[in-house]
């Protein structure tokens, strides 16, 4: 496994284990929430819900038990930033969880680690043990009377849909990982029916820095609506794939320059469930208000067959749909079959247009984010690369 010294502005800036916990415990809960609100930190998993609002709702809830869950079920194709954080910066993630626990009034934190990352389990558990020895976990943490908090790690078992927060909670409770109807949201009725904060690994990792340096400092980076920095997982056709910390608002062109990508045809932003951006739009910026992403950036060079790329994405969704709601279960299969028809040259444009309409229906009618976002790639690739896909060779272009 490659492990490297990273340089970055926020998450990858200097930090010593426990530093932020000590500072946080000297403050009141309201003060921490204030700094978090000031920072305008939004959820890094992709949905972009304001973190302070989420924490505030659970902090304000009356309940004998509350939970903080770290969503480490990083399954979106092309995303591996959480791998880097958990392997190289576990102190940020775990300290963030302790601070969350203190702020919302939870005594239990759970990390839901995807089954594919089981190889990290031992080192993470060793790390938690070291934190317990330093009294950064356990009873009366760093001498703060009455603040007890501990973290356990639970493994997933190879289901992409469990990255959806309600499916994740179902899985923790010992059920099939099928998404729940929302509302109620986990902040009201979460794990074991108790108020629960579910945060992405990267969101929690930002918290210690905000506590130490303040919301104002955090806001200096990024754009008005997307504050701070973002970890981008860059893969595909470029010289230097890897995890990059860049301020929000960086344009696709700038990013391609940094990673050494030349003669690029398309960039898939946001993973299989994201959108495919053609060359003509590389001046768009990576931010919640423009090309939003949970961090996945996949680069496709001039010689790549976009229909093949799309086929790969749709196969992924057919396999990973949990199957409980019809638009997602049947819809993804139909879109996938449509791609095979195009591949064989056995399609009509009338039917392809029907499939695009079906995609729009899936976006509104699916129960959870999986089915709501899986048609994105289908629609954007067929639209942006129609010349390549449909012109010449009876639709069998590029085979």
């Amino acid at each position, binding site marked *: 496994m490659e492990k490297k010294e990273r340089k970055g502005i926020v998450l990858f800036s200097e930090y010593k284990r426990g530093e932020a916990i000590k500072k946080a415990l000297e403050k009141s809960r309201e003060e921490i929430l204030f700094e978090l609100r000031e920072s305008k930190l939004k959820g890094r998993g992709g949905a972009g819900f304001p973190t302070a609002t989420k924490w505030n709702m659970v902090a304000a809830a009356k309940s004998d038990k509350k939970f903080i869950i770290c969503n480490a079920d990083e399954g979106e194709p092309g995303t*591996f930033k959480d791998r880097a954080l958990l392997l190289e910066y576990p102190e940020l993630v775990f300290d963030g969880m302790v601070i969350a626990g203190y702020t919302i009034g939870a005594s239990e934190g759970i990390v839901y680690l995807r089954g*594919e*990352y089981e190889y990290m389990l031992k080192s993470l558990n060793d790390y938690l043990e070291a934190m317990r020895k330093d009294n950064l976990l356990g009873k009366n943490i760093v001498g703060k009377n009455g603040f007890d908090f501990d973290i356990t790690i*639970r493994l997933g*078992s190879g289901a992409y849909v469990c990255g959806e927060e309600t499916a994740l909670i179902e899985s923790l409770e*010992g059920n099939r990982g099928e998404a729940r109807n929302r509302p109620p949201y986990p902040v009201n009725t979460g794990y074991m029916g108790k108020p629960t904060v579910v945060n992405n690994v990267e969101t929690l990792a930002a918290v210690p820095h905000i506590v130490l340096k303040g919301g104002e400092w955090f806001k200096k980076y990024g754009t008005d609506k997307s504050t701070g920095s973002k970890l981008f997982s860059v893969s*595909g056709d470029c010289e230097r794939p890897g*995890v990059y910390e860049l301020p929000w608002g960086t344009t696709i062109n700038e990013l391609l320059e940094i990673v050494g990508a030349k003669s690029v045809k398309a960039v898939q932003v946001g993973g299989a469930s994201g959108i495919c951006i053609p060359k003509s739009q590389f001046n768009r910026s990576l931010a919640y208000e423009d090309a939003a992403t949970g961090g996945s950036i996949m680069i496709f060079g001039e010689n790549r067959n976009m229909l093949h790329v799309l086929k790969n994405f749709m196969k992924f969704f057919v*396999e990973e749909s949990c199957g409980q709601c019809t638009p997602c279960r049947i819809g993804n299969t139909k879109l996938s079959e449509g791609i095979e028809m195009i591949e064989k040259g056995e399609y009509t444009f009338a039917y392809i247009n029907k499939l695009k309409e079906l995609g729009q229906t899936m976006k509104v009618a699916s129960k959870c984010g999986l089915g709501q976002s899986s048609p994105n790639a289908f629609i954007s690739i067929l639209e942006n690369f129609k010349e390549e896909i449909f012109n010449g060779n009876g639709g069998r272009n590029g085979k």
Partner: protein
Amino acid sequence: MLVLEKNAMTEEIEQLVEKYGRSRSSLLPILQDIQRKHKHIPDFAQQEIARLLDIHPVEIYSVITFYSFLSTTPKGKYIVRLCQTIACDMQGKEAVAKAIERELGIKFGQTTKDNKFTLEYANCVGMCDQGPAMIVNENVYTKLTPEKAIQILSELK
């Protein structure tokens, strides 16, 4: 299953229930441990877990069949999961896949006759910057070539 084996399984599950707690939320950790050790979750184990957690056995079956890392039929000693998602695909997954199939003499989804290897595809294992990648049991291997993949598998005893 022999009576002795049944008793041993019951004892094992009792210990797991003890370790993780007698509640439904312990179900996945228990199933994961059984899967890891026995390479599947036999019918009898499902019934015993159901009895000890006070859930209907069909609920246990329903959960097992949902997750791709849990199975009701026996898998090999080493489960080889090759990532099939686009980043690994672009970096040469197909050649690695073919080489492993040839070398082990099985197709994806199958187990070797000696029950040593099960070959499966995985969806994005989070190694897109270092593909092609595969996971063997819990260990991850990156930047595979056909030769390197075969070398890794041949060193497993």
